[in-house]
C-alpha cells in the first residue's frame, strides 16, 4: 500500500467516525464543510463500489485501504515530499478533529502521528535521533500561539529535532485557537488558518520550507451543475500566487506533466493522438492510489481525454493560458468507472508582469456509482483528484526555472482576437464583490438559512456587546459576526 492509500484510509476512518458522533462531525466540518450536512457519507459506498467493480461482494470492514492506526504507522515510515506534505498535514488535521487522541503525543495514535509529521533528519537536525526513540518535552502552552515562543524555539537547541518538529506540527494542526477559537466559532477563513499554520511552522523551523504547501488541500468549492446529461458534481479551485511566474507556470499545464508532478496518482497521461482538428489532443489517463499495483490497486480508473490549449488573447500578448478537456469520443466505455470528466485549467496574469498569477481549475466528475456531489467532493479530496492547481504550482515552483523542465504550452491563439488584441481583462486583484466567477450551487433555501444564521449570530453578539457595554465592561463581541464559515 502507498502513502496515498494511507491518506484515503485516514479520510475513510474519519467518515465512518462522524456517522455516529455528531460532535466529531461538527469538528470535522470545520475543515471539510460538506460534513455540515448530517447525512453526508462516502467511504462505505466507495469501498463497496470498488469491490463490486472487481466482482467482489465486500463488507465495509474489507476495505483495501488501511485502517487508521495502520495508515498513520505507514505514513510514519517515511517523510512526505512535494505536494504530498500538504495533503498529509491536512488529512491529519482532519483526523485530529474526529479522533482527538491523535493530537495527544503520548497516545499510540498520537506518537504515530508525530512520526508521520516529522521532517527528514537531513533538513532539520542532522544529529537528531529518530523520533520514536527520543521524543522531546512538549512545548509550554504559552508557546503554542505566542510569537515570543516562536523566537525561543528558534534560539533553543533542539536535541530531538525530528521528534520535536513532528510534535510541534501536530500541535499546530490540532490548535483550535489558530482555527478560530476553542468555543467552536470559526473566525478565520480556512485558507487563512492554513496559511497561519504554515507560516508558524516555517518560522519555528519545524518544516524545512513552504514549497508545495499552498493552496490548502481540499479547498475547492463543490457545486452541483446541470451538465449535458443531467446533474453532475463540479469542483472549482481558484487562488492567487506570486510564488511562480506566468511563463514557468504554463510549462506544467500540458497533461504529460501531471504524471511527473504527481506520480503517485497519475500513473499514465500519454498523448495518443490528435482530434479531428490538429488543435485537439487526445490523452490516455490512468489514475490510481497505487500505480505499481496495476489492476490490484485499491482504486484505479482509466479513460481518454480530449484537450485543447489556448493563449488569450494570443501568444504574443498572452494574458491567459487555458486548457479545456473532456472525455474523448468513444468514452465512457460500458465498464468505465469514470462517466464524466471535464474541466479547465486556467493560468492568468493578475497584472502586467510575470507575477502574481491567478490559477483556476474546474473539474466535473461522475463515477459509475451515484455518489452525491458532497460525497464526490470528499472522495476527490481523499484521492487528490482535483488538486491540479496545487500540483501545478508545486511543479512550477520547484522546477520552473530549470532548463528543460516541463513542456512548451501547446496553445493556439484565439482566431477571433489574434492580431488585434483588445484592452483585455482588467485582471483586478480586488474584483467587485460577486463578480468573481460565480456559478452558484447554493440552494436558495440554504442561502436564506445561512443568512438568517449569520444574522442571528450577529444579533446575539451585538446584544452581548451592548449588555457588556452598559454594564461598564469591555464591549467585546465584534469581529466575529461577519466572519462566517466558508462555503
Amino acid at each position, binding site marked *: 500500500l502507498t502513502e496515498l492509500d494511507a491518506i484515503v484510509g485516514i479520510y475513510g476512518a474519519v467518515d465512518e467516525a462522524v456517522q455516529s458522533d455528531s460532535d466529531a462531525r461538527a469538528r470535522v466540518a470545520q475543515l471539510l464543510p460538506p460534513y455540515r450536512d448530517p447525512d453526508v457519507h462516502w467511504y462505505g459506498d466507495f469501498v463497496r463500489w470498488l469491490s463490486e467493480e472487481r466482482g467482489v461482494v465486500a463488507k465495509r470492514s474489507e476495505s483495501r485501504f488501511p485502517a487508521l492506526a495502520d495508515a498513520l504507522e505507514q505514513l510514519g515510515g517515511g517523510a512526505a515530499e512535494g505536494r504530498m506534505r500538504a495533503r498529509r498535514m491536512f488529512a491529519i488535521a482532519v483526523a485530529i478533529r474526529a479522533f482527538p487522541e491523535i493530537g495527544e503525543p503520548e497516545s499510540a495514535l498520537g506518537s504515530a502521528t508525530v512520526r508521520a509529521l516529522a521532517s527528514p533528519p537531513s533538513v532539520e537536525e542532522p544529529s537528531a535521533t529518530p523520533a520514536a526513540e527520543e521524543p522531546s518535552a512538549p512545548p509550554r502552552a504559552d508557546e503554542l500561539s505566542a510569537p515570543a515562543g516562536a523566537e525561543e524555539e528558534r534560539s533553543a537547541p533542539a536535541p530531538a529535532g525530528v521528534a520535536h518538529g513532528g510534535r510541534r506540527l501536530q500541535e499546530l494542526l490540532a490548535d483550535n485557537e489558530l482555527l478560530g477559537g476553542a468555543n467552536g466559532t470559526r473566525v478565520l477563513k480556512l485558507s487563512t488558518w492554513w496559511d497561519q499554520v504554515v507560516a508558524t511552522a516555517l518560522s519555528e523551523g519545524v518544516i524545512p520550507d513552504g514549497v508545495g504547501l499552498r493552496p490548502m488541500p481540499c479547498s475547492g468549492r463543490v457545486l452541483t451543475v*446541470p451538465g449535458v446529461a443531467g446533474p453532475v458534481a463540479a469542483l472549482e479551485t481558484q487562488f492567487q500566487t506570486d510564488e511562480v511566474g506566468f511563463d514557468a507556470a504554463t510549462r506544467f499545464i500540458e497533461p504529460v506533466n501531471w504524471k511527473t508532478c504527481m506520480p503517485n496518482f497519475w500513473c499514465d497521461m500519454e498523448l495518443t493522438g490528435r482530434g479531428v482538428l490538429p488543435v485537439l489532443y487526445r490523452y490516455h489517463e490512468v489514475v490510481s492510489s497505487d500505480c505499481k499495483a496495476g489492476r490490484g490497486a485499491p482504486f484505479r480508473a482509466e479513460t481518454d481525454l480530449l484537450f485543447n490549449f489556448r493563449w488569450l488573447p494570443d501568444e504574443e500578448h498572452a494574458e491567459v493560458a487555458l486548457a479545456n478537456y473532456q472525455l474523448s469520443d468513444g468514452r465512457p466505455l460500458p465498464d468505465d468507472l469514470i462517466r464524466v470528466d*471535464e474541466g479547465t485549467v486556467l493560468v492568468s496574469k493578475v497584472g502586467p508582469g510575470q507575477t502574481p498569477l491567478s490559477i483556476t481549475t474546474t473539474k466535473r466528475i461522475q463515477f459509475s456509482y451515484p455518489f452525491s456531489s458532497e460525497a464526490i467532493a470528499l472522495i476527490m479530496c481523499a484521492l487528490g483528484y482535483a488538486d491540479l492547481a496545487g500540483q501545478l504550482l508545486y511543479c512550477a515552483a520547484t522546477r520552473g526555472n530549470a532548463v528543460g523542465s516541463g513542456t512548451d504550452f501547446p496553445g493556439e491563439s484565439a482566431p477571433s482576437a489574434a492580431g488585434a488584441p483588445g484592452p*483585455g*481583462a482588467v485582471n483586478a486583484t480586488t474584483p467587485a464583490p460577486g463578480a468573481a466567477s460565480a456559478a452558484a450551487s447554493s440552494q436558495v433555501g440554504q442561502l436564506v438559512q445561512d443568512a438568517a444564521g449569520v444574522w442571528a449570530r450577529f444579533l446575539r453578539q451585538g446584544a452581548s456587546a451592548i449588555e457588556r457595554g452598559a454594564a461598564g465592561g469591555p464591549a467585546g463581541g465584534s469581529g466575529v459576526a461577519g466572519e462566517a464559515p466558508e462555503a
Partner: protein
Amino acid sequence: VGFSASDIVQGYATLASSLLERWNGLAADASRKFDAGEYDCESAANDLATSASLATEGIALWAEEMLKAASAFAGPGPSIVTSEPFRAPAGATLELAGPLTKGPTLDELPVSVVHLQPSQLSATETEFTLCVDAAGHRGATYFGTVNALTKTGTAPVSVWITVP
C-alpha cells in the same frame, strides 16, 4: 444628548428587524423565481445590487457576509455564471462578435445566452462583465470577442468565462 442602554438596544432591534425583513423579502422573491425557472442574468444583477444596498445599511461585518452570500446567490441557479471584469473604452457600445467557444468543433455558448453587463458603457465606465446561462453546457472556459464600438472605431476585446 445621551442615550440610555435601552434606547440603543431598541434602535438596534429596529434596525435588525428592518434589514432582516427586507433581506428575507429579497431571498423569498429570488427563491420563487428560482423555483419557477425564471432566474436569469438580469435577476442576478438586480438582486446583487439590492443585496449590496441592503448590506450598506447594516454594518461592515454583516455587509461582508451578505455580499458573500449574494455572490453565491448571484449565480443562483447552478447555471448562471458571471465572469471577471473586462475593460473597454469609456462610452463604448458593446456587442458580442459571435458565440463563445471552448475550442474548434467543441461546445459553444450561443450569443443568446451571453449577456453583457452593461452593454452600453457610460462616459465614465470602462469595465463590463459577461453573464451566462450555462445550463446544459460543458464545464470549460469559453472564449470569444466583444466588439467595443465608439465614435472613433471598433476595438475587439478578448473575453472568456469559466463555467464550473
